[in-house]
């Protein structure tokens, strides 16, 4: 029987790996926990830095997948992974000659940062909420009115030892700037403030977008980490921070406080690691064999990684890593 590859996780990385493998004539089974493919991409509205509609990328990938002959099974969650195959939540065991783990990441649960009052005060949101609202076409405060003052807070759940998330999720900064621009364009009268420790514009066109946000849209970037949020009488949110560039504490009440949440490793990483003897990084992301020549292989032969399961990545990086993973799998199957 021709050799079969199972891909765990139907996000952008999973789909691209499946596509590349099927182009090379290797039968592939793509398993996805949710009811539809696309992973986190399904939740996004527009993609930085070009404001490309997320559904464009998604539809393109899905459309390519339909014509590719890859076997796809949705709504089945993988709970155990071994070199020889995977076990589903339903107990069913699926054999495979190689497994590619593309389970991606989990959004940091902002409720853990209790002092920001997410899930407690009315007008505290996360970037995921905003993307959802943008997708629904209407962004507004809890009482439906338009915000006149919006504050974004960078690094929520990243670079924060208090919540054991030491790593930098790198894509949330640019997401924050993107949403700040989208909201400012949606509410031109509003003042938008971004509170940051460091602005990390790592990708091409990101710095220019940051500068455009500052100059054209007059978005205020305040270097200082909001320490505390509390509700005011009229349902707004009072925030406190230090404007470290002037060394003065700063206090203001805003209509919407938007927490720019980072990427957390999946809980399933630890489980998979235990099953198959995979190595994890301190941040909880799975550790590739090395970061250079074998950055898509795990320390166990036959198990491969692609996408944000090993580290925070943007969509472009995940897609290219998927192709590399597929290439490694083909090579592995040829040798084995």
């Amino acid at each position: 029987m021709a050799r079969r590859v199972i891909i765990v996780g139907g996000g952008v990385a999973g789909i691209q790996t499946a596509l590349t493998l099927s182009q090379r004539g290797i039968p592939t089974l793509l398993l996805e926990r949710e009811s539809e493919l696309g992973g986190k991409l399904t939740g996004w509205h527009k993609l930085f830095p070009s404001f490309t509609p997320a559904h464009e990328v998604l539809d393109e990938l899905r459309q390519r997948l339909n014509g590719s002959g890859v076997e796809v099974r949705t709504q089945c969650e993988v709970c155990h992974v071994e070199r020889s195959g995977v076990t589903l939540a339903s107990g069913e065991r699926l054999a495979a000659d190689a497994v590619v783990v593309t389970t991606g990441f989990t959004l940091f649960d902002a409720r853990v940062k209790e002092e920001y009052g997410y899930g407690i005060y009315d007008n505290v949101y996360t970037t995921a909420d905003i993307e959802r609202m943008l997708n629904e076409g209407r962004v507004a405060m809890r009482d439906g009115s338009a915000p006149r003052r919006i504050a974004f807070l960078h690094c929520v759940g990243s670079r924060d030892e208090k919540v054991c998330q030491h790593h930098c999720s790198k894509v949330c900064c640019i997401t924050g700037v993107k949403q700040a621009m989208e909201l400012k364009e949606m509410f031109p009268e509003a003042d938008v403030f971004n509170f940051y420790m460091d602005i990390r514009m790592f990708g091409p066109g990101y710095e220019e977008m940051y500068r455009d946000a500052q100059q054209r849209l007059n978005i205020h970037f305040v270097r200082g980490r909001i320490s505390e949020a509390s509700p005011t009488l009229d349902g707004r949110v009072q925030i406190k921070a230090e404007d470290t560039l002037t060394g003065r504490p700063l206090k203001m009440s805003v209509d919407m406080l938007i927490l720019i949440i980072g990427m957390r490793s999946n809980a399933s990483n630890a489980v998979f690691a235990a099953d198959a003897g995979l190595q994890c990084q301190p941040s909880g992301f799975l550790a590739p064999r090395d970061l250079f020549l074998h950055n898509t292989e795990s320390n166990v032969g036959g198990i491969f990684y692609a996408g944000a399961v090993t580290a925070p990545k943007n969509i472009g990086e995940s897609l290219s890593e998927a192709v590399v993973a597929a290439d490694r799998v083909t090579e592995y199957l040829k040798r084995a």
Partner: protein
Amino acid sequence: MAAMNFGFGINRPRVIDLDRNNLRKSDEILREMPELQTCIGCGACTALCTAGNLTSFNFRRVHTLVRRGEYEGAYEEMNKCMLCGKCRLACPRGINTRGVVMLIKRKLGDF
């Protein structure tokens, strides 16, 4: 009734209260010179400031405070600037720093 003197005064809060501050003047300044908003606070201008290394004058800090609506004393501080133009050569964001000094003094002159 005259205010009692108990031998101490109540400390004034140092907080920048953006609810109470009137940002009209700062918006006017930013409308006239939007590039000022691209300041990333690297401090290159203040580092080589001629007046800055003779006094406590800190150009970056003063214009940041003005952008937060803290106009108190901004004019007197900016008056320490000799307008020699060194800062304009250093700014990585290409901000017309001398223009900012003159703009702030003009806008806040009668404050």
